[in-house]
């Protein structure tokens, strides 16, 4: 039985429209025009326990709205949604006990209190028995390296430190489901790696199901076995990263470092995308010309110092998908 089941979910928002300028503002006082925005327009998917799913889409696609419905914060207009056998917004209190949520742009820690006191407060709010609390607290402190931060008030933490503490805070009550809404937003490279590593271990070692929304394609590439792409409230694709790639392009990249600058380069099956001194970026379709054949053909004509083949960067794939959407 799936852990999360979503069928035909619809959520609309009413947005007051106002004409620009003073006159428009005055008219708005007398008569309001409303525009209905369909944030979710028939979303369906299901998730098995232990999955780690990337939920991606451009800004305003409906990612956060989905997460909020799944968390029981927003009530959808229509459609079915069951998480762990419960309808989130109908049994909110029982439901939220089972889930952990991190909104990357906000903190759930108490701004003025030292980190450890926020943890203790959450222990009391979730009524976690002391023994369980001590175990998961020590585990989180170890995994996320929080020891030196515990006595610092939250407002004095750096963003990366705060995010690590927020992750711990979301997991103190040992939820079986974790929603991460842009957990790496604004973080530096080292902090991003720490967060990714932690999420991966949590998923692999403890079987926590994770839904991750992000704009950082490295997050997706490093973590997600399955990617759901949405735009304007509709699901555009749902599958593995490889399938997503294949759906857009079968192209591969060949990067060649030539031994010397040879001026012209020409091959009927390879397109030059970019050229930096001695380095050529080529694009080719492996269905029309296998990589080995192309390489030997180039090697026969040019002196090659180095070369490698790679997939097109996922950013480009996504950018193309967003554009098509």
């Amino acid at each position, binding site marked *: 039985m799936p852990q999360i089941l979503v069928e035909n979910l619809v959520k609309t928002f009413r947005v007051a429209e106002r004409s620009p300028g003073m006159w428009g503002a005055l008219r708005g006082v007398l008569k309001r025009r409303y525009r209905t925005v369909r944030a979710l327009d028939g979303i369906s998917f299901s998730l098995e326990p232990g999955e780690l799913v990337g939920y991606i889409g451009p800004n305003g696609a409906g990612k956060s709205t989905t997460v*909020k419905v799944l968390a029981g*914060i927003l009530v959808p207009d229509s459609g079915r949604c069951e998480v762990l056998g419960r309808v989130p917004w109908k049994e909110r209190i029982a439901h939220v006990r089972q889930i952990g949520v991190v909104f990357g742009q906000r903190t759930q820690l108490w701004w003025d*209190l030292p980190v450890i006191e926020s943890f203790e407060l959450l222990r009391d*709010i979730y*009524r976690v028995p002391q023994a369980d609390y001590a175990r998961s607290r020590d585990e989180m402190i170890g995994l996320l390296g929080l020891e030196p931060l515990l006595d610092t008030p939250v407002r004095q933490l750096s963003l990366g430190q705060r995010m690590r503490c927020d992750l711990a805070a979301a997991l103190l009550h040992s939820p079986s489901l974790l929603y991460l809404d842009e957990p790496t937003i604004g973080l530096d490279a080292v902090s991003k790696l720490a967060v990714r590593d932690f999420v991966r271990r949590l998923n692999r070692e403890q079987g926590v199901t994770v839904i991750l929304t992000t704009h950082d394609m490295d997050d997706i590439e490093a973590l997600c076995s399955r990617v759901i792409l949405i735009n304007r409230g509709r699901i555009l694709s749902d599958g593995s990263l490889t399938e997503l790639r294949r759906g857009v392009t079968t192209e591969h990249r060949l990067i060649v470092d030539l031994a010397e600058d040879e001026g012209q380069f020409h091959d009927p099956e390879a397109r030059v995308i970019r050229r930096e001194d001695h380095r050529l970026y080529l694009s080719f379709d492996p269905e029309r010309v296998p990589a080995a054949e192309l390489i030997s053909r180039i090697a026969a004509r040019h002196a090659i110092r180095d070369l490698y083949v790679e997939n097109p960067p996922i950013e480009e794939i996504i950018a193309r998908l967003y554009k098509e959407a």
Partner: protein
Amino acid sequence: MKAYRAIISARFRMFLQYRAAAIAGVGTQLFFGLVLIMIYEAFYRSSSAPKPMSYPQVVTYVWLGQAFLAMLPWYTDYEIYGLIRTGAVAYELLRPVDLYAFWYCRILASRSASTLLRAVPIFLIAGLFLGLRPPPTLASAAAWALAMLGALLLGCSISVLTMLSLLWTTSGLGITQLVSTVVLVLSGMSVPLPLFPDWARPILDVLPFRGLVDVPFRLYNGSLPPEEVLPLFLQQLAWTAGLVLLGRWLLGRGMRRLVVQGG
């Protein structure tokens, strides 16, 4: 219960960090108290008509008002206000607790913490130097303490209601200002209720606001006899219960149409 207790104690500790704000508050309140007392002195000297409260009673009343100003539901609780405005309210909804009770406790905690920080020094200073008198009898003191508890509970239920209006208007400043004025005038904070015209008294007696200031302060200075406390306390509780029920109903409706602001 443990969850709510934990929230209250955390808020208390947090408030104790803001000592500078408390000191500034005490200074402001002392200044305002002195100004008000000067006005009443002029008023009492200029008229020989019989007054419903003696001059020393009025002075005590004014100081009580300054000491317990922070307890009145006349200002916005910026914390929860900020939560709703910025959308951080999302995290509030993720807690496995009853949201109304959760918010009520937060307000209760912040009100009592900031009141305590201001009331103690003002009591000391005004009591020693500025004419604040102790209650006339022990019975008056006990009646006052009971009515203060009622006033605190009632005040918080009004505060929650004001805050809930944010679920509909987001900016909410209009409603808070309106509530603020209504509370300050109708509770007896600006002018003691016995000084209001006679026709207004029956109306003021029925409204909930009287229970915030008029009832506890007049029990303290002896202008109300202590044996009247029981019905007045019950009135405070009845209004509290009514406003809590109204708040819970509004919250239930507000949540359904909640738009979590921003991203």
